């Protein structure tokens, strides 16, 4: 009876007032001007929302969420030398950061030493150069690994950096069993949107599953993969595509693990995620809630995982760098604040808030401090952490959550029909979908249909002069010299021997982690180890779609 009254009065309200312009979600569905209890009709609380920490996991992955433990404040960071990076890490930890996140330079990410011809001009530009274990020793100098968790944004050479981290731990007297951290290790998205791939898919998946198996036994507190939606979204895809494409990539990793003979519960609990928190607050919260539900269903129903930890979508999120502008950079402080709010309302486990000078350079101390403060103010002053899933039950949010849930599942089915993530990448489907949307967005910006404050509306003549961090023009040369002097003092015979072991193991079927750990302990360089793997595995050739 009450429902009927609402139906009638809603209709009267619509009929009695000026029609309102229809808006659409990021993925193209219509947004109504008003949501009411009628929109909750098909929402079954116990099956569609439930309780935090239990399936369907929509309201949060842990029973206590931020009331038990706040999200980790984890800014992405790396500078042009290991020593400067160590200094920045100490600064961040001193200013309230609670987890480390290492940004490596491009040569490191692509398995080249600082003295490789392809590395010229690139050393130390987007993050820290790491050529050998010695560089990692400097980066972590004075930082007790048993008190920290460290996320490393490294993909194709993940095994090498993980091996180095294990060695640093051992030098600090720590068993690998106590080490906490994450390696990104998500090569599938590198093929489509980020470009730091090295090897073709099959050997890359072998490296991933070797890491799964090794860590399950030896480094059980490490997240062995951080499957990424972040970069897909930065490349231009929608919220629906971000989840559907990254979930499909995860399915490929899971299937590789199972094919390698692992039990799902041996490695699934250590799958973690990195997502992109973008501008539309409610859509982003809905996205994460739907994603948690879909992941839980995928692991329980499709993969028959029995360990409840396997069902839990634990994620780090970085606010969207691509949404920030070079024009009027202080506006970015505001954008990042709203995006961080969305991430907190959505129940993220770990957050990196972009710095406001993101469009221009690596962050200064002041700009990264502002990012830390953004997170701290949210946590300490706004009250949004005082209850779990505070937006739960909102008519709008629940309607959006259900809608995006359906859309994500539709797209995942489409990818399944193509043959899964690897097939969808080989035939260019994923890339073309993302390219198409990136182009549409650009046209919308140029036509003014999509407003970018400061860029196509509310522009000014004078631009703020934003200070840039000091960079050392000799950084590359100094790094190369450090590498040369290290090579001169290490045992060349031992290095030759360990590299041979890596080669032999790569050609066979044994787990590569033990020999890679031996190799890094002997101060074989990242470039030398990856060079051997390149010889054995070959190099990936990017699919042409344009």
């Amino acid at each position, binding site marked *: 009876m009450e429902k009927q009254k609402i139906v009638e009065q809603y209709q009267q309200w619509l009929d009695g007032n000026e029609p309102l312009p229809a808006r659409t979600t990021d993925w193209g569905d219509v947004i109504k001007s008003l949501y009411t209890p009628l929109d909750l009709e098909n929402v079954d609380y116990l099956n569609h929302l439930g309780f935090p920490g239990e399936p369907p996991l929509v309201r949060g992955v842990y029973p206590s969420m931020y009331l038990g433990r706040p999200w980790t404040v984890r800014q992405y960071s790396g500078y042009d030398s290991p020593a400067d990076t160590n200094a920045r890490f100490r600064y961040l930890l001193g200013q309230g950061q609670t987890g480390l996140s290492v940004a490596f330079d*491009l*040569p490191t*990410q*692509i398995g*080249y030493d600082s003295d490789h011809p*392809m*590395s*010229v*001009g*690139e050393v130390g*530009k*987007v993050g820290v150069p790491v050529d050998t274990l010695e560089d990692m020793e400097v980066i972590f100098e004075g930082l007790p690994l048993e008190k920290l968790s460290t996320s490393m944004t490294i993909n194709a050479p993940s095994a090498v950096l993980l091996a180095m981290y294990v060695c640093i731990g051992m030098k600090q007297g720590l068993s690998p069993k106590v080490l906490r951290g994450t390696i990104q290790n998500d090569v599938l998205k*590198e093929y489509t*949107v*980020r*470009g*730091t*791939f090295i090897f073709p898919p099959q050997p890359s998946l072998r490296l991933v599953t070797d890491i799964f198996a090794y860590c399950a036994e030896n480094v059980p507190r490490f997240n062995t993969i951080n499957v990424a939606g972040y970069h897909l979204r*930065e*490349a*231009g895809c929608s919220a629906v595509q971000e989840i559907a494409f990254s979930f499909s990539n995860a399915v490929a990793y899971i299937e590789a693990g199972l094919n390698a003979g692992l039990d799902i519960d041996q490695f699934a609990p250590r799958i973690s995620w990195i997502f992109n928190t973008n501008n539309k607050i409610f859509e982003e919260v809905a996205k994460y809630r739907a994603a948690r539900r879909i992941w839980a269903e995928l692991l329980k129903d499709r993969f028959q995982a029995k360990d409840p930890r396997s069902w839990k979508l634990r994620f780090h999120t970085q606010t969207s760098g*691509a949404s920030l*502008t*070079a*024009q009027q950079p202080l506006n970015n402080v505001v954008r990042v604040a709203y995006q961080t709010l969305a991430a907190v309302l959505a129940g993220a486990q770990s957050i990196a808030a972009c710095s406001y000078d993101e*469009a*221009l*350079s690596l962050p200064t101390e002041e700009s990264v401090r502002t990012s830390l403060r953004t997170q701290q103010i949210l946590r300490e002053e706004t009250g949004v952490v005082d209850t779990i899933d505070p937006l739960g039950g909102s008519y709008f949010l629940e309607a959006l959550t259900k809608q995006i849930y359906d859309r994500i599942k539709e797209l995942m089915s489409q990818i399944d029909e193509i043959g899964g993530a690897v097939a969808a990448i080989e035939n260019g489907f994923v890339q073309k979908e*993302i*390219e198409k949307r*990136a*182009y549409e967005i*650009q*046209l919308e910006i*140029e036509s003014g249909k999509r407003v*970018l404050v400061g*860029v196509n509306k509310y522009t000014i003549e004078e631009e703020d002069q934003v200070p*840039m961090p000091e960079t050392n023009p000799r950084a590359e040369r100094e790094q190369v010299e450090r590498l040369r002097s290290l090579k001169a003092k290490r045992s060349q015979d031992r290095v030759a021997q360990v590299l041979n072991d890596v080669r032999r193991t790569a050609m066979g079927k044994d787990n590569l982690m033990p020999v890679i750990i031996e190799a890094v302990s002997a101060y074989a360089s990242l470039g030398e180890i990856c060079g051997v793997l390149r010889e054995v595995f070959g190099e990936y050739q*990017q699919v*042409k779609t*344009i």
Partner: protein
Amino acid sequence: MDRKIRVLAAKPGLDGHDRGIKVVCTGLKDAGMEVIYTGLRQTPEAIVNAALQEDVDVIALSTLSGAHNHHLPRVAQLLKEKQCEHILLVAGGIVPDHDRVALKKQGVSEIFGPGATLKSIAAFIKENLPAT
């Protein structure tokens, strides 16, 4: 019939973020140009060789990772050495203001930063090709 303007687009160096360059390729095609995108990890030598092979009028490079002061002058230098300075060299991405003056002196005709429109890039190319 007028020959279409031919553009070689590429990413020099190691950066793999190609959203921008792909959007520019599509935009220039929609503006009536022929665009050949040679992809990631292109060396300056490979870029210039491809430009000659493809007989292009324009080279459009995307640089986001801070290596612009290395790669762009190298391409400009090679064009000079091969006597191909008729090829218009433009770049886009993240290039700080204080580096732009020097790069333009070294042969980069224009640098399109964040917020540049496809229209302005196409217009610049059309207006700045040497008269045939």
